[in-house]
């Protein structure tokens, strides 16, 4: 009872607070604004100081201060010269519009009003209940039934939502794989989807209708039913069988993707992709079909890839701006990283493997559709297969991409012949001089 009285007080208090805030908003915003002005002034003075190259110490402290207080403190220590010039620089410095604070206050106000409405509705409901009780018509199970009905409404909405998701978002998301192994993955994906959708829908129908059917009403009693070993065995064994089928299916698919026979590994086109913050580099083996050695210790500004040109296989290695591969040919990607872990991910191909520094990962696959055909199929003349980084790697992670172009074999050969080599003339010169100086050291390094 006491709680309910307090409820009313709370509603009134909420209203008062809301009205009070409404009146105080302009002054509040003004106050905040003046504070912001202060910050702006001090921040501006910082920049001016740095520009004028005042004492280095002051500049450093100015750098480290982020808060308004810190900024003000620095402003106080600043020389009169810089502060006078800072006054002129106010307009250039970052400044927060007082409108920002006003908007924020309005949103808070809106929320408070909403809370008040909720409190009032709650209060009205309590009063309603109270009158029912006084009239002797109070049904203690009314709320129980109400919540049970909500559960059923939720069930309908949930099933509709799931259907909407599958029909609309599923349609947006789904593009058939355009690689040989990807088609097998897709089949498995669809089988799994069918199974789990059936389970999801059935379980939710049971889970949300049972509460309605078996809700507590006057005179109802539960059925004492602690266990039934047969039923329990059934629903242990059935999922176990379904899972065994999925596991076996998945296991053999996985092995067929990752366990490529050695002769196929050798006969495939080899491409090396190196990830670094925040770009990808692509290296083709050139005419000899062998990718030259790489030694990270040989990385120089000019040879940023770190290719070891002591290995003659490296001399004809080709640098490519995009990943271009021929259709219906097996391609073996060697994925390496220069700095941290990245992930080589091509969603359309169902291809992903991490680029890990210190080791080479491989992924071999056969694309089955050219970019041109895909564009036709998607009815989107700008559509491209894209390879993106899928392992958190820093501030540029969200934009670390490489175009993947699938072409016919003739086009591929033609494209390959137009690409530049890594071993440019400048690098050749650098290599020659370095080799003359300490060839011995380099040879041992490359052996590592």
């Amino acid at each position: 009872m006491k709680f309910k009285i307090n409820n009313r007080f709370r509603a009134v208090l909420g209203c008062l607070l809301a009205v009070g805030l409404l009146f105080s908003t302009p002054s509040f915003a003004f106050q905040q604004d003046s504070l912001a002005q202060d910050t702006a002034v001090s921040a501006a003075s910082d920049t001016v100081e740095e520009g004028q190259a005042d004492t280095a110490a002051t500049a450093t402290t100015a750098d480290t201060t982020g808060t308004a207080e810190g900024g003000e403190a620095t402003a106080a220590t600043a020389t009169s010269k810089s502060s006078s010039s800072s006054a002129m620089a106010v307009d250039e410095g970052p400044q927060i519009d007082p409108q920002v604070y006003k908007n924020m206050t309005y949103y808070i106000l809106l929320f408070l009003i909403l809370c008040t409405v909720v409190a009032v509705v709650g209060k009205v409901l309590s009063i309603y209940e109270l009158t029912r009780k006084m009239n002797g018509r109070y049904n203690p199970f009314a709320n129980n039934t109400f919540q049970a009905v909500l559960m059923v409404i939720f069930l309908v909405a949930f099933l509709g939502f799931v259907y909407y998701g599958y029909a609309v978002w599923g349609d947006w998301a789904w593009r058939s794989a355009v690689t040989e192994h990807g088609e097998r993955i897709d089949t498995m994906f669809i089988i799994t989807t069918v199974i789990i959708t059936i389970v999801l829908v059935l379980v939710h129908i049971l889970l949300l209708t049972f509460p309605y059917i078996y809700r507590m009403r006057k005179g109802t009693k539960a059925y004492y039913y602690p266990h039934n070993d047969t039923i329990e065995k059934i629903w242990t064994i059935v999922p176990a069988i379904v899972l065994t089928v999925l596991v076996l299916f998945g296991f053999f698919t996985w092995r067929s993707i990752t366990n490529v026979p050695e002769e196929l590994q050798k006969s495939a086109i080899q491409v090396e992709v190196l990830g670094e913050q925040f770009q990808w580099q692509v290296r083709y083996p050139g005419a000899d079909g062998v990718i030259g050695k790489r030694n990270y210790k040989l990385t120089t500004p000019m040879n940023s890839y770190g290719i070891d040109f002591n290995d003659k296989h490296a001399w004809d290695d080709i640098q490519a701006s995009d990943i271009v591969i021929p259709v219906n040919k097996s391609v073996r990607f060697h994925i390496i990283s220069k700095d941290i872990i990245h992930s080589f991910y091509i969603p359309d191909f169902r291809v992903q493997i991490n680029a890990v520094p210190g080791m080479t990962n491989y992924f071999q696959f056969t694309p089955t559709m050219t970019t041109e055909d895909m564009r036709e199929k998607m009815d989107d003349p700008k559509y491209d297969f894209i390879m993106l980084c899928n392992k958190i790697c820093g501030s540029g992670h969200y934009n670390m991409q490489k175009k993947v172009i699938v072409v016919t074999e003739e086009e591929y050969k033609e494209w390959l012949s137009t690409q530049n080599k890594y071993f440019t003339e400048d690098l050749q010169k650098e290599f020659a001089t370095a080799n003359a100086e300490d060839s011995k050291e380099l040879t041992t390094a490359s052996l590592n």
Partner: protein
Amino acid sequence: MSSTVISHGAAHHDAHDHHQETFLTKYIFSQDHKMIAKQFLITGIVMAVFAMVLSILFRIQLAWPDTDFPILEVFLGKWAEGGRMKPEFFLSLVTIHGTMMVFFVLTAGLSGTFSNLLIPYQLGARDMASPLMNMLSYWFFFTACVIMVASFFVESGPASAGWTIYPPLSSVPTSIPGSGLGMTLWLVSMTLFIASQVLGGVNYISTVLNMRTKGMDLWKMPLTIWAFFLTAIVGLLSFPVLVSAVVLLFFDRSVGTSFYLSDLVVQGEILPNEGGSPILFQHLFWFLGHPEVYIVVMPALGLTSEIISTNSRKPIFGYHAMVYSLVGITVLSFIVWGHHMFVTGMNPFLGGVFMITTLIIAVPSAVKAFNYIATLWRGNIRFTPAMMFAIGMVSFFVSGGLTGLYLGNAALDINLHDTYFVVAHFHLVMGSASIFGMLAGVYHWYPKMFGRMMDTKLGYLHFWLTFIGAYLVFFPMHFMGIDGVPRRYYTFTAFPFMDKWISVNLLITWAAIVAGLAQVAFLWNFFASIWKGKKATQNPWNSNTLEWTTPVEHIHGNWPGEIPTVYRWPYDYSKPGHDTDFIPQTVPFSETMSSNLPHDFEGNEEAIRIQEEWNKANNREVKEG
């Protein structure tokens, strides 16, 4: 009706009068399990709100990547100059959101709260085996929280390598600013946190094994206790492995070792580290990391079992199967960690093996879900807010768990690994499900913790907004993942194929904001009811377990007189032949002759004979079911 007479008048408990309780020993450095539970809970709630605010911030960035929000600059300063969040700070937000939610809220806030509260209460113990260790456990946890929050105030920003902190990103400060001092603080915080978990875990296990009251054999323990017990075992065995991972990472960062580093050229600088492997860290991390998700979800399953049974007024279906499936999950949870590493370059054959073990673990989980539904069947269901959250928990556990069949399948994982599909999967199955288990527990045991009731209407409002909000937030993410949208992307504007998801991102963010604001209803309800809630009765839910035989007012040692003796299992709800629909564990069979079943006597021939005589004398016929 109860064999242990509870008398409020007899609260003169001389044995403990020598305890001079000051404010400091009662509320701050308390060694009382009930107070420590409240400390864990409130710290957990504070951390949850903090982590939730972080998530709203990055959701705002994702929904409106091209809009300036000058107000952000007011709060975030240089991290959001001009009202536009920086990519580094975005990564910090997702990192700290994940860390806090997984470790501080769902591990410490959930296990810490309810293990501490319920283990002594439901076992009939006066307190934990070691109250001092219990207190230390809390204070280590608290310090860890303070350090983690403090990392927001260092110049280079908080850790930002993702909650999995994979090196080399986390160990080379030139690769990302957050890997400077912020990362060091993360590691220190986590080490303290693990110390807290180990102290707590040892305590929980020894209490469960040694301090059960008379008659409380293992098969009479409530499922909550089974869940906490097995969770503590998992934690005790796996958390120390994370310490080793964290300490080696610390050495790599600060001492110059190369456990995880090799062949690095970061920002044009050739690093001297050689011979390590980043994959080693991943193995060590996920050896904890995967059991960790069961550490998070098992207590929630335990709480849900208890709440669903109590509020269905029906015994939990298949008690033994529920325990065995928990044991199965416990054992299997240690041999599935590799499924997080299918595409990291781990030996593919090993990946295949991990895939098999991973899908096996789905069987005990499925059994649990089906048993919950069987418990609801023909029940007499009472919709307390706790019950609503428990049903919601089962719903999330099922819809999130099912998508595990894709991710546990190595071949399908190729395309889904590290995409939004994963985000959707674990936020439903371990995030939302565990949070709902925890909230169900809060609503259910609030009268026991604070002696007052929470407001039910606000509880329902909170439930519906959060339940619908969580589905609106996480369900659409599955489809983004299928399309190949990676997680931890600062904005979707760099790729044409992601354009279509902008509208969905708006929906998700608005749902997140509404669900976030709905938590105000909970916070208000929780904190206001501490002082203003309706006074609770001793056993408000007509429950069978021992904690409801203690007086409402907390007393040192829990029971004023002797500790109660236990005669029966905790799920005798609606037993035919009994006049009420619940029979507390403390009621001996001699007082319930009209409802006893032959099965109850566990082969005690003397008791069966007495019962049969009584049956004959009273014309009672018993069908063995």
